[in-house]
């Protein structure tokens, strides 16, 4: 019950954020270089044709009016049409989003599964080799340009060792995509009981996911270590030890659950980085997600997809932060009950 109230309140708080996002994308839309009407009309258009297009696009209206039209179009799910693909932007994004999400979530999952134990281990054994390893990994993780990490991995695991497939998208040329259920190829292939296909999809996913994971691992491990060190030194841990609780209970039920709180908050920031890094990784691995879609459009000066992409990413991020707030409330009663 308290949790529902918390969710409602956070949802209300997310609304101004979303509004801000819409205003900013609208402003960016208006600030586009050149005259969109002239651009859409093409180089051979007459002045009259340009004016017609201007009127059709609503560009002859005042800025507030244009904003109203913009919001109305958004409400209808109309993000414009891509000049490159000739399709509505919304449909393009919808078909490509699962690829990006699969990659981002795989990267995040990988990062969390490695970074949490690494952070905990280095906090419980400060100065040990695990601690030093964690320090090297985290410093390298925040210093390595993500596109560079990707290229290094490709060179080592594709060119030198031949373990990984060519960095060319989600499936090799001989496979066909599984029937869409979740849009995540690995999951869909498993659901279709096609082990070989799942393996093929997993092989394609491995390197880009590891690239993202290495990048996201650093801040998570660092925060886990710092937070765990802080919690382990706190008084209630001393109480738990004085009461003779089993070391496992002290470490997991008492210390880790408390130490996770700042890590959960940090995940929002990490996700923001991941969504940006996704664009770079998709480019390196020719991954057919929304990032590479936006990039192709950007190079071709096709702005509607870029706008749609930015809006999509921002909306996704707002909802992700909402989820994080709710998860935080689940773990921390102080937030839940005071809501």
């Amino acid at each position: 019950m308290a949790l529902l109230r918390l969710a409602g309140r956070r949802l209300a708080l997310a609304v101004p954020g979303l509004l801000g996002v819409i205003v900013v994308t609208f402003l960016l839309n208006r600030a586009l270089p050149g005259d969109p009407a002239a651009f859409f009309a093409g180089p051979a258009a007459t002045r009259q044709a340009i004016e017609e297009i201007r009127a059709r696009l609503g560009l002859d209206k005042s800025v507030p009016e244009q904003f109203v039209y913009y919001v109305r179009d958004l409400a209808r799910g109309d993000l414009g049409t891509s000049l490159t693909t000739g399709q509505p932007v919304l449909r393009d994004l919808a078909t490509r989003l699962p690829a990006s999400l699969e990659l981002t979530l795989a990267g995040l999952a990988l990062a969390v599964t490695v970074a949490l134990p690494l952070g905990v281990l280095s906090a419980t054994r400060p100065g040990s080799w695990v601690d030093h390893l964690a320090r090297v990994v985290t410093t390298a993780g925040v210093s390595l340009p993500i596109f560079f990490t990707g290229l290094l991995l490709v060179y080592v695991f594709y060119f030198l060792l031949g373990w990984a497939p060519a960095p060319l998208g989600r499936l090799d040329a001989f496979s066909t995509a599984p029937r869409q259920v979740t849009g995540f190829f690995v999951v869909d292939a498993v659901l279709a009981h096609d082990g070989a296909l799942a393996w093929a999809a997993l092989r394609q996913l491995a390197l880009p996911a590891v690239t993202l994971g290495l990048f996201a691992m650093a801040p998570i491990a660092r925060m886990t270590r710092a937070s765990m060190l802080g919690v382990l030194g706190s008084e209630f841990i001393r109480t738990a030890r004085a009461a003779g609780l089993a070391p496992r209970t002290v470490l997991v039920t008492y210390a880790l659950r408390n130490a996770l709180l700042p890590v959960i908050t940090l995940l929002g920031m990490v996700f923001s980085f991941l969504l940006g890094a996704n664009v770079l990784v998709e480019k390196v691995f020719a991954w057919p997600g929304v990032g590479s879609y936006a990039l192709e459009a950007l190079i071709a000066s096709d702005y509607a997809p870029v706008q749609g992409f930015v809006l999509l990413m921002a909306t996704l991020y707002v909802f992700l932060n909402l989820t994080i707030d709710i998860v935080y409330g689940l773990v921390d009663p102080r937030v839940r009950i005071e809501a």
Partner: protein
Amino acid sequence: MSALLRHGRYVLGENPVTAVAFGLFVVLILLALVGPSLAPHDPLASDTARKLEPPSARYWFGTDQVGRDILSRVLVATRLDLAISLSAVTLSFVVGSGLGASAGFFGGWTDRIVTRVTDTIMAFPLFVLAMAIVAALGNTLANIVYATAIINLPFYARMARAEVNVRREAGFVEAARLSGNGSARILTVHVFPNCLPPMMVQASLNLGWAILNAAGLSFIGLGVRPPTPEWGIMVAEGAAFIVSGEWWIALFPGLALMLAVFCFNLLGDGLRDLIDPRRRT
């Protein structure tokens, strides 16, 4: 001052890593200043007869797809990369801390507007926002700097706001107010300088991130245009050759980038220890 120096020597002595980072920082600055005159070849001169040569005694870092010397290009690029990130960080430091400090000091509407603006920026995944800004404002080097500055702005604004807020009611501020100082004077002379140390730490930690962002933007083809030597775009040019095994084109500019970021991150950590030993993690 001498106490700070002594403490600094102590930190460097205790912390050889910071000392190394500091040395590296000096080398980077020197390279940015004199890099072009150290370059053994013309960074722009192509020689298709010698394209894609692996590292050799003549070309230490090899040559790229049109036969340009990669070592020269990496050296020359130092100035541009540092200039982009330094100016972006300076810009967001000045504007962000100004906005944040006023918000924290005056409160009310100023505070609400600044908070709303920073929250809106933070509502975007930051790199995506930078992409969108460059796409909207135009694909120029200056806009890369602006975009990088804008996505860094919230960090400084929030920090300055918090730091000023803490000190707004401090005894020395009350004393200054009682002795007839105006608000603007109190803020600029009495409050803000006291907030500088933690802000400087933030700035140095931010430099690495700024370089990464700017290089990321040029990697996806924004801002810097070929044939200008810049680390991000050089890695992008080398990317196509990784799958055929010509590793040196992407590796050396990538390493340079990594080293610079690494150096700034370590330096930031060291600076934090120097200024606030308690916040060590």
